[in-house]
């Protein structure tokens, strides 16, 4: 899965169709041929899978071989002479196709795959006579009742790609073979519905099926591949940054597909990326600006907004205005928004909504490593000899990045999951340390103590590249491994074994997820995780590194663009040289702007009256921030609330001005994914109604406030970003059109920076390991997080049938023992209360959640988990049957 590039080995020469070509040792004939533009046909081959050799379409003639060789699996050798399209081979391929057609339904007119069906293409290309061997069409089967995935067994050509992708890539195994020989079939175990065999609705089987046997369910707006406009763009949900191929027809998005070998996902997608796109057509989508809840013209809306802001600025100064951005706001919009706030409004209170959750982790990482970005990427995870996953439910929050960890799991790399819940990864990992909520620190302290006891630390690295080791040692001096394990509620022997595996790995990676920040000690926990990595020399090398996973599609880009009160594009606000440069470029005085408030401080700042106006772009603080009653009250108190969104969010309910914006499929610009890859967002459909793209709205608002911005489009904005942000200096749309580039990309000829903190003498700082503070809970500890079907507060996924068809609303996960005690049955209604706040939800009885804990995902509007959360900490809740 590593990006193409020389592996340093000497090239070998072979002859391909009479032409001498160069190849890397280890490449297959197929890889070499495709690289040379020679199209060898395949049906059972997928770059994501191991070569299978079943379809026999890729057979080629190799001089001296006993018979035709399968190009998909045969490695090239020096001097090899390969002929890919001899008359004999063509005849044999034609035969194979004719044989496949003997029992194919030939229902092409109603088949989803028509137009992008390999069987159809090759049958035509190889001059197949319809069915010279007779035709025994199987009886029509399908499509089954899965909301997203249709299975037409009668069209199956038994290439096994679905079976293999579900097993090899997803590590699940929903599909398998039934019967043998001519009677072989692909189906689920015992022909159960997909929903009952562990299917996560990722649609990987859909993406790999070369015919129409497994496809997306047909919809009324269905259109053929040749009828649709296809646009490559970047997914706007999580921080994985998957490349999508969006099919639109008659100006509407009808289908989302992926492309093998393209993008960081290489063709893999999850349920949200592939199926949750119907929100663009949601019935309640707002495509007209509004003032005080009534439809308005753009001029009227912008005028109303500008007047309010101007008035507040006049009365209270620019610092009384704050802006809050959602995580799928593009770099270009984010750049303009913070420029608007800093230079036009005069406020540093510009932040992203996810910062409220990531505050502690970001600060800990900056204090220790000087960067909160993911230091490496999925591409060198294959070199990790151990992976620690701390408080991150990757399979649900980052489903495609998680596949890289799954790949490592399958290669027997020890994976250590520290999580109270038995998450999908925890169920497959070598170690699941089912820690008590909030006791992650105890696990990390015990691991470090054990590593020191066994003298497994990387002393040379510690001496040369770190500071603060003595303080760490001191903080661990009296620590007893067994006692810490007991505090964590984890088996000490298991913990020790995990620590040894981690320390002895040639390289080890650490994932830090939002789970740790739900405790009060998020800062110290993240710091301890960094210390563990430093202790074992695990930064700055392939396979090592800190992966502090980000919440949304452009979480990293927002930081890079300066969407932080204490940060400007490419620099800390405290960096006076950088600020001076920006002041010169912007013609604006930044140093006189007061310090801003961040997302976590916002509500109290409104309550105290220091913030009087709020500009929200693509975020829903009413549901996202803890204690929703308090947040809603604060929002209502604002003198001016401007919401720029495509939907009537809970936040928009109290908005004075609503600015109707394009959804991501209608937008242009770029996202910087969690691993710092800058990728294009391209418009796949025209902007609905009178909505506008976000960047354009920000520019109009700025100009309404007296600026004279004349950006011609997002590309123009990106030009300015690259001029002013040193980390983006080498980024242009042309460069990132296809290539995968990680920032910092500091010059035109720079290919990006795959690994941060390479050992250039920079010091990384240890953080003393604080003791864990575990408060004994009287009732149930509430855990929250994501489910793979929904994103964040669910503004878009709750409006997408691809998600709601499977998970319509949040359910409270309750351990069977607790459920029995409370008399709760599967699907029974329960009331979850924290203080005076409560939500009512259905219960899901599962041992994924430990006894004493309950889990409520955060996407629901009807039962917002945020309502039960105080700022920080795992709240204690009571649960009662209704």
């Amino acid at each position, binding site marked *: 899965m590593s990006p193409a590039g020389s592996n340093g080995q000497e090239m070998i020469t072979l002859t391909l169709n009479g032409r001498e070509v160069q190849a890397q040792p280890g490449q297959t004939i197929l890889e070499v041929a495709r690289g040379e533009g020679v199209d060898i046909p395949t049906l059972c081959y997928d770059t994501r899978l191991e*070569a*299978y*050799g*079943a*379809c*026999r379409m890729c*057979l080629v003639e190799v001089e001296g071989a006993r*018979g*035709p060789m*399968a190009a998909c*699996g*045969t*490695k090239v050798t020096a001097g090899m002479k390969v002929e890919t399209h001899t008359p004999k081979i063509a005849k*044999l391929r034609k*035969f*194979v196709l004719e*044989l*496949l057609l*003997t*029992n194919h339904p030939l229902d092409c007119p109603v088949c989803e795959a028509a137009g992008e069906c390999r069987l159809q293409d090759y049958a035509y290309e190889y001059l197949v006579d319809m069915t010279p*061997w*007779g035709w025994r069409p199987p009886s029509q089967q399908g499509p089954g009742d899965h909301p997203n995935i249709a299975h037409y067994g009668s069209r199956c*050509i*038994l290439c*096994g790609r679905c079976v293999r992708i579900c097993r090899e890539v997803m590590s699940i195994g929903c599909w398998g*073979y039934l*019967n*043998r*020989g*001519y*009677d*072989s079939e692909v189906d689920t175990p015992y022909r159960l519905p997909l929903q009952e065999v562990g299917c996560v609705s990722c649609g990987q089987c859909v993406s790999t099926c070369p015919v129409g046997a497994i496809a997306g369910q047909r919809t009324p707006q269905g259109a053929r591949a040749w009828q649709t406009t296809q646009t490559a763009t970047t997914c706007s949900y999580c921080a994985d940054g998957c490349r999508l191929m969006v099919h639109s027809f008659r100006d509407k998005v009808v289908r989302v597909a992926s492309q093998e070998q393209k993008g960081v996902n290489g063709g893999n997608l999850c349920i949200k990326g592939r199926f949750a796109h119907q929100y663009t057509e949601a019935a309640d989508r707002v495509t007209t600006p509004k003032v005080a809840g009534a439809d308005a013209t753009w001029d009227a809306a912008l005028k109303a907004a500008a007047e309010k802001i101007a008035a507040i600025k006049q009365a209270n100064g620019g610092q009384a205005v704050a802006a809050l951005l959602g995580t799928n706001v593009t770099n270009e919009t984010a750049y303009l928004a913070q420029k608007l706030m800093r230079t036009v409004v005069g406020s540093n209170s510009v932040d992203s909504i996810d910062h409220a959750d990531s505050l502690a982790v970001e600060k800990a990482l900056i204090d220790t490593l000087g960067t909160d970005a993911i230091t490496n990427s999925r591409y060198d995870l294959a070199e990790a000899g151990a992976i620690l996953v701390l408080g991150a439910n990757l399979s649900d929050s980052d489903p495609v990045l998680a596949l890289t960890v799954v790949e490592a799991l399958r290669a027997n790399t020890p994976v250590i999951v520290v999580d109270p819940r038995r998450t999908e990864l925890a169920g497959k990992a070598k170690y699941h340390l089912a820690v008590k909520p909030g006791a992650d620190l105890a696990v990390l302290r015990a691991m470090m103590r054990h590593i020191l006891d066994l003298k497994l630390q990387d002393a040379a690295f510690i001496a040369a590249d770190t500071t603060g080791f003595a303080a760490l040692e001191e903080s661990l001096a009296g620590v007893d491994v067994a006692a810490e394990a007991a505090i964590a509620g984890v088996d000490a022997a298991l913990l020790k074994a995990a620590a040894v595996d981690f320390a002895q790995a040639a390289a080890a990676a650490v994932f830090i997820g939002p789970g740790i920040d739900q405790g009060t000690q998020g800062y110290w926990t993240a710091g301890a995780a960094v210390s563990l990595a430093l202790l074992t020399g695990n930064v700055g090398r392939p396979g090592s590194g800190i992966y502090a996973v980000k919440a949304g599609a452009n979480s990293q880009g927002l930081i890079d663009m300066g969407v932080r009160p204490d940060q400007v594009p490419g620099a800390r606000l405290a960096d006076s040289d950088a600020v001076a440069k920006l002041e010169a470029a912007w013609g604006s005085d930044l140093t006189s702007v007061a310090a801003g408030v961040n997302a976590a401080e916002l509500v109290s700042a409104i309550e105290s009256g220091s913030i009087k106006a709020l500009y929200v772009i693509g975020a829903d603080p009413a549901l996202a921030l803890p204690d929703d009653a308090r947040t809603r009250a604060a929002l209502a108190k604002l003198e001016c609330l401007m919401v720029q969104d495509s939907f009537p969010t809970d936040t928009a309910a109290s908005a004075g001005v609503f600015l109707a914006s394009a959804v991501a499929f209608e937008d242009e610009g770029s996202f910087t994914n969690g691993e710092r890859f800058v990728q294009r967002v391209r418009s796949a459909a025209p902007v609905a109604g009178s909505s506008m793209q976000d960047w354009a709205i920000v520019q109009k608002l700025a100009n309404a406030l007296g600026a004279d911005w004349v950006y011609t489009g997002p590309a123009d904005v990106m030009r300015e970003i690259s001029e002013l942000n040193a980390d983006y200096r080498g980024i242009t749309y042309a460069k990132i059109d296809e290539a995968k580039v990680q920032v910092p990309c500091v010059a035109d000829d720079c290919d990006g920076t795959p690994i941060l903190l390479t050992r250039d003498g920079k010091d990384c700082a240890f953080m003393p390991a604080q003791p864990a503070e575990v408060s004994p809970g009287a009732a149930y500890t509430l855990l929250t997080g994501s489910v793979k079907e929904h994103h964040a507060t669910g503004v878009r996924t709750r409006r997408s049938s691809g998600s709601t068809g499977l998970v319509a609303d949040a359910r409270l996960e309750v351990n069977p023992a607790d459920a029995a005690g409370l008399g709760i049955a599967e699907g029974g209604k329960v009331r979850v209360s924290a203080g005076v706040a409560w939500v009512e939800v259905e219960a899901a009885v599962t041992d994924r959640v430990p006894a004493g804990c309950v889990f409520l995902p955060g996407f629901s509007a009807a039962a917002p988990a945020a309502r039960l959360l105080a700022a920080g900490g795992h709240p204690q809740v009571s649960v009662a049957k209704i």
Partner: protein
Amino acid sequence: MPKLDSGAALESFRQSLQAAQEAQRPCVTICSGTGCHASRSDKVNAAFVEQLQAQGLADKVDIKRTGCHGFCELGTIVAILPQEVTYLQVKPEDVAEVVTTTLVEGGVVERLVYHDAVIGAIPREDDIPFYKPQTPLVFGQNRYIDPCDIDSYIVKGGYAALAKALFSMSPDEVLNEVKASELRGRGGGGFPTGAKWKTTKEAADPVKYVVVNADEGDPGAFMDRSLLEGNPHRVIEGLIIGAYAIGAHQGYVYVRQEYPIAVDNLTVALQQAREYGLLGDSVLGSGFSFDIAIHRGAGAFVSGESSALMAAIEGHVGEPRPKYVRTAVSGIYGHPTNLNNVETWATVPLIIENGSEWFRGIGTEGSKGTKIFSLVGKVKNTGLVEVPMGIPLRQVVFDIGGGIPKDRKFKAVQTGGPSGGVIPEKMIDVRVDFDDLSAAGSMMGSGGLIVMDEDTCMVDTARYYLNFLSEESCGKCVPCREGIYQMLGLLTAMCEGTSQPGDIERLEEISGVVKDFSLCALGTTAPNPVLSTLAHFRDEYEAHVNEKRCPAGVCKPLVNYYIDPDKCRACMLCFKECPAAAITGARREIHIIDQSKCTKCGACFDVCPSRYNAVARLSGVPVPEPVAAGTPVSPRKGGDDE
């Protein structure tokens, strides 16, 4: 149980066993191989236990249940030692007489010994013509050994080769000895065993495996079964020697679930070998550790293919994978794995014990040693035979096999199982070795020899094999899964009289695709039964397609039975025998077959007395109109009516 911790300990234990044996103590050996098992050898055994008790010989005579002797046609075989009197087709009711006559009185029960048309009674087993041309090197010990008693193997010299390898040869020397012997794999491919071992030995991975392929699946073949059932320790010994040479510490025996006795006996043998210190940590105290696990196959022919077999051992579906990297380099769990057939492993101890030079002295230039065949089909003496490589096929069929029953005419021999081909009569003098059989258009295979007589239809034979292969194709690759199905369809049409002109050419065409494009050897060799029968018996195919005629009269839809009114004597035999009540007739009335009721079972044809020969089997010609019902039989010329 002694734990043998050195070569010397093994030798002294063997000597103590030999010393304890009373040379003249009588012993009843009862063949308990699969053939004799089917002939109720267990009841014969029970009868001997009972009779020895009844006649007061229980503590004077031993009973030993041995492995297969090979002469399955005439089981149950009972050999009385030390006289070496061998009784055939022994039934439980014969036992009392055998005990009295032979064990008490020292005589011979004449009616139970082999009778040759020329020589007369032959009491000694080795003198029987079936055995005389054989060279039972690998198989020969079977009849003296109780497979469930390791001592009976050790007393006959068992595990001496292992001791020799471990204590007087380096692994390289063992490997070189096997290489020098020019032993070729007995499973079918005939790949040089030493070269295969070398590949695995030299693979960089320190974890290596050795595997016994006992997934014997060819129709009619049971060589490996009889070896595993009858002499499991020889296979185990060969495997340990191989593991020592290659550097493997774990072995597997992949054996079909359908071989329950083999599994049972092997399980006992492995347990006993472990208890004796011949398996496990430090084999015989040599420091070399090795153990063997049994993996039972779930009944798939294709799992005999190496990569499919290894997938099955890993717990996956037994499907072959393309062998871009050979299993010798990347096999079980990706580790180098050396797979050999049962017979190959069983041959190894002989080579180590007697030397490669001795082994090379047997056989032909390209094929050394002996080969075990299962001789079945239309032949008088069916059973297992072990012959030196290079023996003419005619000798196997006619001298050992005794020729064709009922004096029918020999037609062909199918060799090599479903992947092999037929050797027609004109080539019956071909030498049986790897290269000559290949040159003759067939192959050695694992050693199945199916003899066919004039009543065998070659189109039907091909259809039979393709049906087998169609059922056994795993379904992974397109040419095998779909192509065999199409071939079977064409062949079935030929046998059922629905084929079209040009079908032979279509059959040939599709055979080419399946042969060239299939993934594993099951597919690439699947057309062989068709191609080889077409090569030698194309006229039969043409008769089926063009004339809708089955020359052998086997294909029912192409055959009709008709009673010749001129020959029918109204004897009513066919009338009584017809299971479909399709024959009408009465005394002195000409019998008539109602073609609409006739199921073509041929019972009428078989029972019609040869002196009348009134029932005719017609194929490719219209059935004449029957005479009117009630037509009286015509008076016989010469008037000798019954």
